[in-house]
């Protein structure tokens, strides 16, 4: 891990710790994006971390920037940091200007979901997109809009689309977006639909890995403090065994996400990215169940902070492809490579 990354992560950690209080998390649950939080993220250079310095960003390496999202997941940062970072990176890479505010990006589920006509350099886009993160709050939407075989990055400003509020299980905005002949700046891109999905999958994997660390920390702390039958429940062997299993899931999630982050700048088709979404998604379900089991009734209340992590895990695992979708892809690839190439596919990843 680079020194630059260590510094960046440490900065982010301090900021998240200061801002992402239980009060803010509660207020942000199906609530508005906190302007204070967003200013802080923006002032610290995090929101444009992945944008080149030339374009007004911090010019952080892709892997180092994505590593931030582990911390964002750990603190349940209730803001579209992942969306804005990646949307900015997409725009910048395609040579488009990067607005300095909330951004989001969307991958149309199928080529025909958005129809495209042209007005000179400007694209006119018509379509509907479901569950776009923070689309209402964004100043613009970055969209993959392919003309035939040629992938394009398009920027649709907020006043060119209509958005209806929706939420994931964690109360994070997942809005329905609707646009007709929306005027979009666009540029050719070397990234196709699979690359875009991979970027989303890496982001959610990193966030899940962070949330798993939080689950483990909360559960261990609770087990040390909660007394039943005259001693902390963490002294009971059954609880110890459960927490050890949770630690294993957290470790696997962290390693998997770290692998995907490392692979990102090199190859967005790396098996490590599929592995991360698969493994973190699996860890999410197992981990959330153990954490709730250890916490008992208290962890099932709105007052306790556990659910800020578990509800996010239950949401994120299904965003940008669930375990089954990524496994089907990875499995088909392994099968095609064949039995005798299985091991070298693994070591080359």
């Amino acid at each position, binding site marked *: 891990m680079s020194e630059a990354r260590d510094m960046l992560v440490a900065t982010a950690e301090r900021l998240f710790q200061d801002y992402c209080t239980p009060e803010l998390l509660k207020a942000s649950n199906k609530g508005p994006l906190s302007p204070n939080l967003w200013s802080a993220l923006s002032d610290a250079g995090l929101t444009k971390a992945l944008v080149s310095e030339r374009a007004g960003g911090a010019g952080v390496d892709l892997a180092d920037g994505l590593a931030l999202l582990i911390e964002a997941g750990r603190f349940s940062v209730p803001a579209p940091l992942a969306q804005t970072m990646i949307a900015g990176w997409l725009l910048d890479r395609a040579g488009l200007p990067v607005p300095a505010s909330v951004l989001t990006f969307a991958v149309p589920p199928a080529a025909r979901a958005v129809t495209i006509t042209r007005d000179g350099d400007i694209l006119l886009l018509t379509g509907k997109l479901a569950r776009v993160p923070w689309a209402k709050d964004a100043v613009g939407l970055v969209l993959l809009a392919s003309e035939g075989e040629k992938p394009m990055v398009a920027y649709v400003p907020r006043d060119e689309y209509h958005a209806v509020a929706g939420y994931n*299980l964690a109360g994070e905005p*997942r809005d329905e977006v609707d646009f007709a002949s929306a005027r979009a700046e666009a540029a050719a891109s070397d990234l196709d639909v699979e690359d875009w999905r991979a970027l989303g999958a890496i982001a959610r994997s990193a966030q899940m890995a962070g949330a798993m660390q939080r689950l483990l920390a909360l559960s261990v702390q609770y087990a040390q403090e909660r007394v039943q039958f005259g001693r902390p429940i963490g002294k009971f062997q059954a609880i110890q065994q459960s927490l050890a299993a949770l630690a294993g899931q957290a470790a696997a999630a962290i390693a998997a996400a770290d692998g995907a982050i490392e692979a990102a700048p090199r190859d967005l088709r790396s098996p490590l990215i599929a592995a991360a979404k698969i493994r973190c998604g699996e860890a999410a379900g197992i981990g959330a*169940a153990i954490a*709730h089991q250890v916490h008992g009734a208290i962890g*099932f*209340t709105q007052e306790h902070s556990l659910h800020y992590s578990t509800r996010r895990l239950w949401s994120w695992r299904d965003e940008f492809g669930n*375990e089954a979708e990524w496994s089907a892809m990875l499995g088909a690839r392994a099968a095609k490579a064949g039995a005798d190439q299985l091991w070298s596919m693994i070591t080359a990843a």
Partner: protein
Amino acid sequence: MHALSFTTPPHSPQAEALRREVRAFLAKEIASRTPQQRGRSWGGFDAEFSRKMGAQGWIAMTWPKRYGGHERSALERYVVLEEMLAAGAPVGGHWVADRQSGPLLLRVGTDKQKDDILPRIAAGECYFCIGMSEPDSGSDLASVRTRASAVQGGFLVNGTKVWTTNAHRCHYMILLCRTGDKGEERHAGLTQFLVDLKNIDSGLEIRPILDLSGEHHFNEVVFTDMFLPEDAVLGSLGSGWEQVTSELAFERSGPERFLSSFTLLVELTRALGPAPSERAAIALGRLVAHVLTLRRLSRSVAGMLQAGQNPAIQAALVKDVGTGFEQEIPEIARMLIAAEPDSQSTQTFLAVLAHTILHAPSFTLRGGTREILRGMIARGLGLR
């Protein structure tokens, strides 16, 4: 070792005839209930529905007629319960009173308590909640701190209970208090009281505890010098522990222990359609096999209870296996239909999935955690 015998569940033609009646009733009465509402399972509260159940004679089914009961068999009661749960009927109003508090009153209540209350429960008009857990006392009842201190003509109660489901909508609470000191025995000095929630003048405060999905089922109930008359004692003074234990023992194996997520299974089947992929068919078939097996185990325990046996360990096993299964359903379902669960979705499956995922953690909390339950099973196996 044959400690684990599960006898074949008995056949009952009357019970099957009753099943047809119940289905006809449900087809009419809850036709307009959406899958999202059905998915709440026994969390659904509907006083009007409870009264209709009472009018049908489907509450207090096994109780003596003199208390408003219907003197029917445990197997007939089982049929009504499972049909209600499978259909996602809103049985939450009378649930606790019918299943737990009424039978407790029948066993240990005074004639006056029984005469006053049981017929109203049977009519579906009188609901109960349980004041047992406390902020620092979950599964460990010996650490109960809410105290009822003897005063002129009764008791003054001070303390706090938590997780009392529906306290804000119930008529009575069965309240477990400390009335004596812990002696040598960890569980001495506890007493159950019958609290008439609608007729307390002062010292009672019911505050909502919202669950993680923001819903209000649980409450915190705070007692500050709340006066209870002497005749509020339920059973005998100091016998709270024994009464609670016997109250819990046989309520572990009912159909509510494996049908909490059944609506999701129904909606999954609907979403998969008549010709699912091999993968989906295998997953669905396995889940059906589990339901069939759990239902048989649960009916076997009901039959053993009916026959006057004491299947305590079997009941605990049914709960352990059953709640694990209920929690597994959403995890399997989400992998078969790739989409984000969404409480507001117009796609029924996704809305029910969202509800079930958010509520599944509570399935193993109700009535003691899995660790406690497995400890009891281990004791039954002779290990403790």
